[in-house]
């Protein structure tokens, strides 16, 4: 153990790998010192575990209807009660973690690269490229996010993939802004000039030497944005434009519980609590990561 500790805290790392591990370790120590960030991390890890082991954790089949047991209040058998079709709400929430994760992943893997590419290209080349790309970014930024997502869903049709595309189309501009700002900081620095003197192409400079610099702030931005993505997706689901039934999507579950809110409060309450918890987790973790990664 002490060997590993010495390896990680060595003042003179012997290899690139060791230096990277040491930096990761230092960041972990900084993150560990922040209890709120740790709580956020715990929630996110819990989300991942629940999603991974959903069939084992769920007490019922999330899709199995039981019309004799409709709208039952929370009990030892149905922990969070049952919905209008007699489906177990606890099991649906547990399986809903998968839907939420799929949405978040789909959005993140499409938004990150788009924003990174547009931002770094605009920042690196400058001039007209920059002006045109930033104008386009501003146009998308000028649109209210949810309303634009609604308009896109109207074209694409409702459904979970289309909801993701719509959210991604509206979510990339801030990422491009962040990546551009980071690029502007480093584009005139000596190491870029050195790489260029060695004959590296523009593509190589952007891909290999500028993009990696932008990644930490993009990770922070992504984590802070996760809650927003989850809330937007839930909003689309609530309006009936996101995940379609019978998928156990939390927003849609709240919409189902809406007409029973006054008499069977549990139908809408528990999925909402799940959304709050997960969004809170990402927000806490994002705040913590910002302090650790965004030293500038």
């Amino acid at each position, binding site marked *: 153990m002490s060997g590993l500790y010495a390896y990680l805290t060595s003042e003179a790392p012997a290899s690139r790998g060791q230096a990277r591990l040491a930096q990761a370790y230092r960041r972990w120590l900084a993150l560990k010192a922040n209890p709120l960030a740790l709580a956020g991390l715990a929630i996110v890890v819990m989300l991942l575990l629940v999603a991974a082991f959903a069939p084992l954790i769920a007490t019922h089949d999330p899709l199995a209807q039981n019309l004799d047991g409709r709208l039952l209040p929370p009990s030892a058998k149905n922990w969070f009660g049952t919905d209008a079709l007699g489906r177990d709400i606890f099991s649906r929430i547990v399986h809903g973690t998968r839907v939420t994760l799929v949405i978040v992943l789909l959005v993140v893997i499409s938004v990150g690269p788009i924003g990174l590419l547009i931002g770094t290209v605009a920042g690196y080349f400058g001039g007209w490229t920059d002006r045109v790309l930033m104008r386009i970014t*501003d146009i998308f930024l000028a*649109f*209210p996010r949810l309303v634009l997502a*609604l308009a896109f869903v109207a074209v694409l*049709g409702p459904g979970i993939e289309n909801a993701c595309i719509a959210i991604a189309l509206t979510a990339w501009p801030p990422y491009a802004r962040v990546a551009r700002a980071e690029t502007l900081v480093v584009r005139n620095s000596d190491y870029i000039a050195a790489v260029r003197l060695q004959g590296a192409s523009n593509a190589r400079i952007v891909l290999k030497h500028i993009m990696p610099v932008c990644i930490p702030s993009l990770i922070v931005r992504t984590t802070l944005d996760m809650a927003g993505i989850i809330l937007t997706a839930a909003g689309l689901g609530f309006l009936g434009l996101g995940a379609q039934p019978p998928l156990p999507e939390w927003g849609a579950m*709240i919409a189902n519980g809406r007409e029973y809110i006054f008499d069977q409060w549990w139908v*809408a309450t528990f999925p909402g609590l799940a959304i709050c918890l997960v969004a809170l987790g990402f927000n806490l973790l994002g705040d913590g990561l910002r302090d650790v990664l965004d030293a500038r």
Partner: protein
Amino acid sequence: MADRRAFSLARSFGREITTVVVTFLGLLAVTFFIARVMPVDPVLAVVGDRAPADVYERARLELGLDKPLLVQFWIYLQKVFSGDFGKSVLTSNPVLVDIKRVFPATLELATLGTLIGITLGIPLGVLAATRQGRWPDHVARFIGLFGYSVPIFWLGLMGLLLFYAKLGWVSGPGRIGVSYQDFIEPITGVLLIDCALNGDWDAFRNAASHLILPSACLGLFSTAYISRMTRSFMIQELQQQYITTARVKGMSEARVIWRHGLRNAMVPLLTVIALSYANLLEGSVLTETVFAWPGLGRYITNSLLSADMNAVLGGTIVVGAIFVGINLLTDLMGRLLDPRAR
């Protein structure tokens, strides 16, 4: 000297306005594109799907669908700028007439929400900044986290459950009780003002009891945002030297904070408040659905659910235009108020 400053100010205004025009044109291009890639055939929407070929062809020519795309975009621009967003299929009114009718309701909601956000958020943010790490700071942080993590439509439902169904403190969904509905003569469209102008205080109270819950929901989000930003602006200002000077002069701490610090923090805060206002216009889409509030947000979602594209795109353009307008306004205001930004 004064001439040159006026000239440079005018030039930066000019540049700002060009930016806004380009942004707005881009916004229209996006909606035009959305309308073009719609899987719904716009000709069939006009003539019905059993029209003979010659009727179909004539309608197609009338809609200008045979012309090049750029020409079509030009025609579209002309229509939009003359206020013609087409007819709503759902209400069979021109979309602009519909929007004029529903917009005051949204305005009422967002305005009250922002007012709540300002009156709670700014003092909270200032207290959090001056008492860092103590309880006002924790309260501000908690409200901030809560506001950023709660789905607004769920919060609205919970509010209805608690304050309407269980406690009976406020009225339920809708804008005003049925018994008052037809007796208020619309003057401004903003119901509270109309009631007051009509001198009907009974209706005023009823409308207010409908309004308070949805605007409190929006107000929470506004408070979360405004208090967070106030805190960070104030922390920045309180580190400045003029604050030290003021303290050295023996000024009371309250005066230093509220008159000197906050006054300077207000300039960036105005931008934040305007952005929060714009965000509430958007947040009203979900809130209005929950509270059956007959505003622009519900108009857009209802139209969307019945595939009424003219109405959806018209609403989108109006909301987008308001966004652009608010951004422009705050930019100009910031420049006028802060000589350093000129």
